[in-house]
């Protein structure tokens, strides 16, 4: 007998933490993980809604989110490796040439 809003608030909290992590962390990898955390939070909300409406499409969306996350991780990590190879550092603040 858990109110649905609990799940939603939980997902909101996780999302917020993800945002904070994204803003606070300096290691590219951790920032990437924060993004994954946000995705997970959203997934939780999806599943909760899918339960509430007794509709499976929500879970299908989660499935897609996970797939996309997998692809994103593959490419993102490759990029990270490349950045590390050129910069010899994972600190995102050292990768700030793309301006002006």
């Amino acid at each position, binding site marked *: 007998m858990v109110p649905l809003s609990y799940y939603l608030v939980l997902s909101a909290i996780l999302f917020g933490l993800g945002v904070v992590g994204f803003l606070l962390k300096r290691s590219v990898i951790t920032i990437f993980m924060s993004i994954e955390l946000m995705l997970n939070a959203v997934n939780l909300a999806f599943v909760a809604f899918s339960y509430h409406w007794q509709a499976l499409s929500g879970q299908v969306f989660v499935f897609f989110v996970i797939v996309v996350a997998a692809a994103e991780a*593959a490419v993102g990590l490759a990029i990270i490796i490349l950045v590390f190879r050129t910069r010899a550092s994972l600190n995102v603040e050292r990768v700030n040439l793309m301006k002006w």
Partner: protein
Amino acid sequence: MPAETVLFFVFGGLAVLGALNLVLQRHPIHSALSLILVMAALAALYLLLGAEFIAAIQVIVYAGAIMVLFVFVIMLLNAGEEERTSMSRAARYVGLPVAGLLLAEVGYLLYRAWPEGAVVEADKFLGRTGPIGRLLFTDFALPFELTSVLILIAVLGAVVLAKKEL
């Protein structure tokens, strides 16, 4: 206190703790582990919500593949503790308070926006694997195929990016 509530609070608490730890830890591997913890907890919550398939996928793909990739990369680059630099003032002085606001607002909204009546009982299970598959291959056939294409492209991109010399 009924079992589901207990389980919810246990796993929800675990998830929140893991997320907090992810933010607080300074070593990538610890963050990764706490993220895995979050994912496991979420998988349990999915089970509570009756989404068995999603739970399994969550563990297999997220915890079992994606995070392994993260850990693998961390090992490969032998990433140490992150250094303390603060070059982006915006992130600190604008981002954090706003993020807090955002969190508060979203939480408040989701709490207010949802009627009290909406509750989760353990027995109203849905999400047997069969129907999901059927849905995937009928209504969502096109997106499904698209994701496969996306994956293929991602693989190619990863290979091209990670090659030592092109």
